[in-house]
């Protein structure tokens, strides 16, 4: 149990930072700050999945992490393009 303590502490720290960036997402004055917080959350989710896969010694979780990364990247790109074109107003 002691050998895995560093991994567990890292996971807990990452979860705390996800909640802090949720606060940023709620109070952010413009749309782009919310997008930035979304970007941070998706990057941290990949890290949590990778660490948990190593902790449980399960290879399939790493595949899930990889596909989650692709989905998060597509989300950011498409949302920024939509906002750049003006959203629904035009």
């Amino acid at each position, binding site marked *: 149990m002691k050998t895995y303590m*560093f*991994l567990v*502490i*890292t996971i807990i*720290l*990452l979860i705390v*930072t996800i909640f*802090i*960036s949720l606060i*940023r997402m709620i109070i952010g004055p*413009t749309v*782009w*700050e919310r*997008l*930035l917080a979304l*970007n*941070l959350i998706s*990057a941290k989710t*990949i*890290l949590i999945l*990778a*660490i948990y*896969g*190593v902790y449980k010694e399960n*290879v399939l979780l*790493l*595949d899930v*992490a*990889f596909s989650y*990364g*692709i989905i998060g*990247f597509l989300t*950011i*790109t498409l949302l*920024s*393009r939509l*906002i*750049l074109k003006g959203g629904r107003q035009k």
Partner: protein
Amino acid sequence: MIYRILLFISWVYIIFGMIGIFRFSNIYSRLLTSSKIDTVAAMTILIALIFKCGFSVFSIRLILILIFIIITSPISSHVIARSAYLNGISIKKEVGK
């Protein structure tokens, strides 16, 4: 063990990334923070995991995730910055406040 030292360094990066997000008052400064500090934190954690696993099925996938993060993380912050810049969020005015 080398991976414990690397994980310890990554905690410092994560904490300073969060502080930087709340300390600056400008969207571009926040973007500069997130594009550097958080990429470095992710890279450090993944390298630490690679050192922990040695050569196995895990480390190949971890190397692939590392390359993917290095390629896509600057692109996504670039896309956000471009969208904010072309929509006319000016830099000088925000600094003056």
